[in-house]
């Protein structure tokens, strides 16, 4: 009953500070808040991580020959998965930095877990290029430092820019996430009854007392970090797209790549936020904090970025004709529209181009089924997009005699499944051990929603209207 009336709010139900503390804090402080399903998913995640470790160990033992990569398709599943994961990481920073700077209060209840997702996704992403080098123990060579080789990395190569982009993105996101957690750590420290939990949260809270000075410093720090991260949202995936756009490979040498990649990243990222957000709010009874309004707006972002991406697909088709480059046109006609991989191209058009169009309908944007369905389709579609771009272009290059089809090997699939498991494990552990929703920002939002009426904990709950 209440739902239909206050559906349109960012916080619903009878809420005060204590109820928010409880509904979020209980996931961390009370192990009974988690059902057996949590444990089952943890097992799935741990098994996936095990598979990941086995496939990494086998890869290091055997060399990259265990992958399906060949010449000409020297970039296969590894780079597809790298770009896919790094794209998924983008929603977190967009929500935390850009929406913060734009004073979008609807970020408050979804920023924490999407930031966590960002960090975990970048961890999964980072693995691939590091292992792709074939000698991961020498990966520190990627960084410019005065070494005994007398060599610097190739500064003109977008692959090196990528090293900077991704490592900066990861470290800034991690610091941003941690800084945002500090006031919540303090809340949990004060609420914790378990001695060890209290000690750990006290350590993490770094002496936070909630004084005016602390808040002042916090705001300064948080906004500075947001200012640093905001351009990263655009730069990281632009630079990832340069890995392709700077080269002369047909299907890669397209100027639309940077904006098209960034839109795709936000697209994939929000899909993943929805995929995690819906079960999270359902199983942990957080519908009053992650409301249908959040879902509605995220679906609108999916629709908008989906249209940009779709426009990118149109441009790719247009440019392969307009460029007058016969190899570009051959790639389009013989590899994308037709040929052994054509089904992946058409599946991409269906997943990314057509599926999100359902969100033109108001009802679809708040329907759990359509949200989950479209988000999964978008995740698959974004993976297919990278598959279409990377191996499909490489298998048909300028030299027809070296054309060779690409097939992933068992270990390619195992490692991809492994990173999915690793990501799941980290998310599941995150839900158990860290506040999934930003407690103090939601309280701040509640304060603003209640018309800035002063009220204190323990007071009778006030109906939010």
């Amino acid at each position, binding site marked *: 009953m209440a739902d239909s009336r206050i559906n349109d709010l960012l916080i619903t139900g009878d809420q005060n500070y204590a109820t928010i503390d409880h509904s979020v804090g209980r996931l961390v402080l009370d192990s009974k808040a988690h059902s057996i399903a949590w444990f089952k998913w943890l097992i799935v995640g741990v098994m996936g991580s095990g598979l990941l470790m086995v496939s990494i160990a086998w890869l290091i033992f055997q060399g990259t020959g265990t992958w399906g990569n060949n010449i000409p398709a020297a970039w296969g599943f590894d780079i597809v998965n790298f770009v896919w994961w790094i794209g998924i990481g983008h929603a977190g920073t967009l929500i935390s930095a850009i929406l913060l700077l734009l004073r979008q209060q609807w970020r408050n209840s979804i920023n924490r877990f999407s930031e966590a997702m960002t960090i975990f996704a970048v961890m999964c992403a980072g693995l691939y290029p590091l292992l792709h080098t074939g000698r991961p123990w020498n990966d520190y060579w990627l960084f410019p*430092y*005065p*070494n*005994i*080789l*007398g*060599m610097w990395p190739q500064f003109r190569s977008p692959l090196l820019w990528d090293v900077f982009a991704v490592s900066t993105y990861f470290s800034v996101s991690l610091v941003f996430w941690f800084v945002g957690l500090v006031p919540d750590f*303090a809340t949990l*420290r*004060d609420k914790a009854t378990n001695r060890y939990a*209290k*000690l750990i949260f*006290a350590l993490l809270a*770094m*002496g936070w*007392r909630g004084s005016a000075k602390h808040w002042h410093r916090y705001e300064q720090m948080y906004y500075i970090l947001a200012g640093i991260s905001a351009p990263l949202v655009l730069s990281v995936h632009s630079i990832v797209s340069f890995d392709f756009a700077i080269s002369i490979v047909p299907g890669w040498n397209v100027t639309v790549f940077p904006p098209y990649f960034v839109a795709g990243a936000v697209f994939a990222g929000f899909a993943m936020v929805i995929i995690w957000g819906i079960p999270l709010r359902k199983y942990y009874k957080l519908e009053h904090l992650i409301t249908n309004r959040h879902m509605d707006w995220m679906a609108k972002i999916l629709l908008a970025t989906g249209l940009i991406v779709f426009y990118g697909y149109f441009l790719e088709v247009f440019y392969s004709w307009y460029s007058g480059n016969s190899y570009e046109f051959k790639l389009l006609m013989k590899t994308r529209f037709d040929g052994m991989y054509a089904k992946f191209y058409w599946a991409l058009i269906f997943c990314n181009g057509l599926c999100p169009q359902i969100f033109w309908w108001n009802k679809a944007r708040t329907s759990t089924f359509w949200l989950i369905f479209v988000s999964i389709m978008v995740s698959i579609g974004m993976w297919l997009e990278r598959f279409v771009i990377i191996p499909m272009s490489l298998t048909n290059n300028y030299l027809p005699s070296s054309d060779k089809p690409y097939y992933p090997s068992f270990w390619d699939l195992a490692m991809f499944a492994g990173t999915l498991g690793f990501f799941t494990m980290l998310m599941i552990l995150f839900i158990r051990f860290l506040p999934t929703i930003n407690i103090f920002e939601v309280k701040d939002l509640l304060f603003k929603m209640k018309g800035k009426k002063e009220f204190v904990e323990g007071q009778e709950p006030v109906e939010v209207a």
Partner: protein
Amino acid sequence: MGSQVFKPNANSIAHMAIIGIAVGPLTIGLALAALSRSPANTKVNIAKNQPVPFSHQHHNWELGIDCRYCHTSVEKSSFAGIPSTETCMSCHSQIWTNSPLLEPVRQSYETNTPIKWNKVNKLPDFVYFNHSIHINRGLQCNICHGSMQDEHITMKGNSFQMAWCLQCHRAPERYLAWNKDLKKEYPGLTPRELVFKYYWKLQKEGKGNLSQSETQIANNTYNGEESPKDVEDGKAIIKELGIKPQQLADCTVCHR
């Protein structure tokens, strides 16, 4: 229990931790950098145990035996050559025939099994190095190997790290004019011949009467020519010998 989990002295620990986080990685990085450049890693000037305590100082400096007497292929091949037992025995079948130090040499000769010398100058398998080209361009042995004529037990004269190789490969003009005095004294000789003529001059004149570069080479302090004049001379030699310095530091020169 209130929010005061820690006592006030935790603040000092926190301060120390912040300093530690800032300084720690830097210290570790610098320590690793220093360690990788130190003799502990490079083995420069660290004598290596050998089955027979062979002295270059004695054979090369005191007796004046030419390098090529033992390292026979240094001018013609990538590998300078380690002398066979027969080479040792060409003298030691006549002199010091009862020396206990030479017992392994005699053993080796009698049983027809080579002596297992411990390699001092090792390069990784992925580096292709050729002695003959370096000798033919007139690079004196000591420039890389240090003052061999002074070594009682053989040791590495330089780190042989890539950065060290590249000093010359990126600026060969600085390393080719060391022999200009020698060239004036022996005008007919090629750079290859001057490499070995250098030891004759060293024997004859002693360290006190050499040019600056020659003295540095004798003492293993040679770091290439500094003066613009010598560098110009080096450039002239590059032209004369047909060296292409622009491709000398390409990856494929050493990593094929």
